[in-house]
């Protein structure tokens, strides 16, 4: 049995095959095509031809893709979204779509309605749902919207109103109409959660083309029996059906796959990972093999959101970063020769001094023609190297949660520019095949379920609350395609709420299981 992993990045589409023992059988790299689909097809064809494996033995196919991110950033292929906010008269002082970029509101049609409903912080009713109000609204919106986002005040505490509105919409518009419920997407913070839910709703068309495109590409290459999955940004997978409900969870899955692939290759589950590309480097932290989650509001395409995102920082430093002297001081990046490195860097006969040239001059790397950088003053090269180290060390330090030295796993095509020792780092682990770490990350992912709610322990004791949250997380995992009997608890996060008069705690539970 084989698994196929494909990662569509900004520059390259990578594809790999793992055997049933998760050994790497073969890997290919092809340029990413404008329509994405052709690039995937080419990568698949090359992979299958070069490895010559039995196609009928491919049991799983995983896709990590940036299509949803691109759709938001480029404002393309987005659906018209109607927003129903449950909470009126509360919250009317800040309306949906406030502070959104104008061009984005136009693309999404800007339709919204504030209706009665919502809960208080302690689960008491803020407002009763008025079903007739919803019915009238839906009559008015017919033909005006492609997708609906439902957002209720404190729905993270009680979401039955959101789910009821969802069934009303399904009764009126049909079972297949795309609906996004905020309680299943974001955490506490109405505006940020609403924004994330709207984005999720806007991606319903993109995810449809992405998933059917992938399935067709597989069938076109004669792969009919594989189970098909999409990668999420937390290092786990989702089934096609689940992905269609939560397309936003694919955002930032690329860097996640890359750091997870690296940890898999290095066989280390708790570590910091540095992925050095041509223009930028990503730094992330793995805890028990999964990326640490970001704790602050994240902007996606200039829109403030709060859905789950990996805590990864990017630095403008890569193998193609340009080295300059400004007023007697050496600077490195943030601009880069990028994919033109093989023409423009000095070692390849070009005219631009890059970080790769510095590494070759100092004997850290052996690429291109060494003699072409022999003229660079050694002191100068050492100083430039110090600047490179400084940029990396600073970024590593920002990601640390304690002042102790950390272990660092190093991957990526540009990793040759990183020196052997860094301040704040106890040891650096490097290895081969690091350049397709992201596709490996895609193919080793498991399936997760997550649940978050505020529980009042004085009413529902801690044990009962924990069990309830875990049960709901397991349901999510099974829905996403996990085998129920393999599911285990991987994360419990309890945050006591400071201003609460009662013993209220925000409880977050995550479970992970094997693919079904």
């Amino acid at each position: 049995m084989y698994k196929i992993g494909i990662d569509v990045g900004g520059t390259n589409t990578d594809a790999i095959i793992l055997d049933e023992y998760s050994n790497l059988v073969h890997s290919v790299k092809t340029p990413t095509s404008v329509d994405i689909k052709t690039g995937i097809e080419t990568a698949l064809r090359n992979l299958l031809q070069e490895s010559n494996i039995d196609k009928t033995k491919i049991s799983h196919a995983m896709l990590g893709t940036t299509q949803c991110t691109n759709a938001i950033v480029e404002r393309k292929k987005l659906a018209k979204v109607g927003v129903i906010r449950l909470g009126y008269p509360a919250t009317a002082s800040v309306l949906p779509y406030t502070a959104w970029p104008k061009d984005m509101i136009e693309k999404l049609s800007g339709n919204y309605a504030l209706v009665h409903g919502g809960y208080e912080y302690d689960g008491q009713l803020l407002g009763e749902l008025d079903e007739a109000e919803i019915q009238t609204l839906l009559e008015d919106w017919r033909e005006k919207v492609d997708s609906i986002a439902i957002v209720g005040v404190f729905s993270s505490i009680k979401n039955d109103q959101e789910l009821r509105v969802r069934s009303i919409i399904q009764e009126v518009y049909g079972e297949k109409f795309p609906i996004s419920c905020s309680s299943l997407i974001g955490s506490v913070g109405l505006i940020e959660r609403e924004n994330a839910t709207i984005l999720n709703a806007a991606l319903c068309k993109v995810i449809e083309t992405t998933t059917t495109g992938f399935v067709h590409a597989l069938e076109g290459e004669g792969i009919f029996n594989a189970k098909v999955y999409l990668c999420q940004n937390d290092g786990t997978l989702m089934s096609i059906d689940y992905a269609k409900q939560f397309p936003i969870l694919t955002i930032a899955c690329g860097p996640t796959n890359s750091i997870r692939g690296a940890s898999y290759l290095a066989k280390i589950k708790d570590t910091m990972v540095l992925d050095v590309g041509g223009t930028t480097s990503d730094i992330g932290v793995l805890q028990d093999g999964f990326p640490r989650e970001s704790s602050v509001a994240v902007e996606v395409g200039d829109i403030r959101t709060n859905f789950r995102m990996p805590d990864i920082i990017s630095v403008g430093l890569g193998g193609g970063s340009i080295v300059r002297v400004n007023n007697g001081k050496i600077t490195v990046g943030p601009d880069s020769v990028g994919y033109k490195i093989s023409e423009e860097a000095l070692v390849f006969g070009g005219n631009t001094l890059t970080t790769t040239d510095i590494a070759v001059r100092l004997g850290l790397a052996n690429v291109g023609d060494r003699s072409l950088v022999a003229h660079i003053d050694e002191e100068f090269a050492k100083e430039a190297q110090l600047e490179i180290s400084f940029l990396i060390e600073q970024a590593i330090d920002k990601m640390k949660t304690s002042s102790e030295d950390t272990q660092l796993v190093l991957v990526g095509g540009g990793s040759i520019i990183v020196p052997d020792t860094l301040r704040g780092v106890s040891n650096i682990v490097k290895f081969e095949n690091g350049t397709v770490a992201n596709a490996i990350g895609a193919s080793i992912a498991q399936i997760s379920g997550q649940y978050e709610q505020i529980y009042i322990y004085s009413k529902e004791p801690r044990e009962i609350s924990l069990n309830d949250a875990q049960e709901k997380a397991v349901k999510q995992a099974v829905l996403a395609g996990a085998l129920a009997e393999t599911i285990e608890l991987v994360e419990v996060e309890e945050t006591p709420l400071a201003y609460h008069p009662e013993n209220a705690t925000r409880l977050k539970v995550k479970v992970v299981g094997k693919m079904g």
Partner: protein
Amino acid sequence: MRYLDKEAIEHIAIGAAFLGTGGGGDPYIGKMMALSAIEKNGPVKLYSVDEIEDEDFFIPAAMMGAPSVLVEKFPRGDEFVKVFQKLAKYIGKEKITGTYPMEAGGVNSMIPIVVAAQLDIPLIDCDGMGRAFPELQMVTFNLDGISATPMAITDEKGNIGIFETIDNKWTERIARSATVEMGASSLVSLYPTTGAQIKKSGVHHIITLSEKIGEIIASKNRNVKDKLHELLQLVSGYELFQGKIVDVIRETKGGFNLGKMNLEGMEVNKNENMKVHFQNENLIAEKNDQVVAMTPDLICLVDYETLLPVTTESLKYGKRVRVIGLPAHEKWRTDKGIETAGPNYFGYDYDYAPIEELVKKVVAEHV
């Protein structure tokens, strides 16, 4: 008189968060409410204190309650009008000439802008703290013996209450419990004041100051040194420390976030350390175990590179900051002011000394 537009509001939000000394929460929701209100009703008029008449009548507006609730359930928007009219009627005043903020910082710098926009009344360039403090009686009007009540309180459902209390500490107690029942957040109108009282007891020019601070911090394409220099000049402040947060210890007691953070020096403060104690707001700063600033003087943390204010909730290991200290308004430096909001009130065993003296002392010992 001048008008406040969107850009001015963006700047005021940043500047007020700076003067909020770590407290008051993230002003994001407040800013969004203010921007929405002026989008709908047009820009707001700002009057300086010398443009108002002694006998005219003014009421401040503020939100009370848990910041964690406010991010999920925010106001309907027309409560302000109701609570204003109710309080005006109760006091027997037909005309409320204008409104102003109770404190600089967080959400409460923005609420009066919403009120002014909706009622089409001017905003007055003053507040009752010149910074942020956690309790209702920590207001310069209280220092001059002005009563916080009659006050009005309301929620988005339409419940309205009027209180008359025997002193301003009771106002805090009763309003706090009503707020919890209203769903842990409420809108309040209190310290009704005349123009003469504002002139005597308010902290003047605070909105303009917030705006100028925000303008400097938000200015693009300038180097940090120049920006910082200009900022310090503006607020008569001192850069107390450049460092990295290496530890944050928090505990929750009696509805407050108490704690302390340790900073490890960098750049000019290499090999030195600083401790900052906070209770919602930053209260005491110690450099190498020597106190360099204490409440009611302001201790503001800003991002090392962007100079954007850092709130207590967002403190975490590794964050690079500059610690800036500035003198409190002179009203806080009186005996009554120090008794109300000085180090002893918050349980620290120090005698208050002004930041100017403390900084001088440290420099002198260093030389």
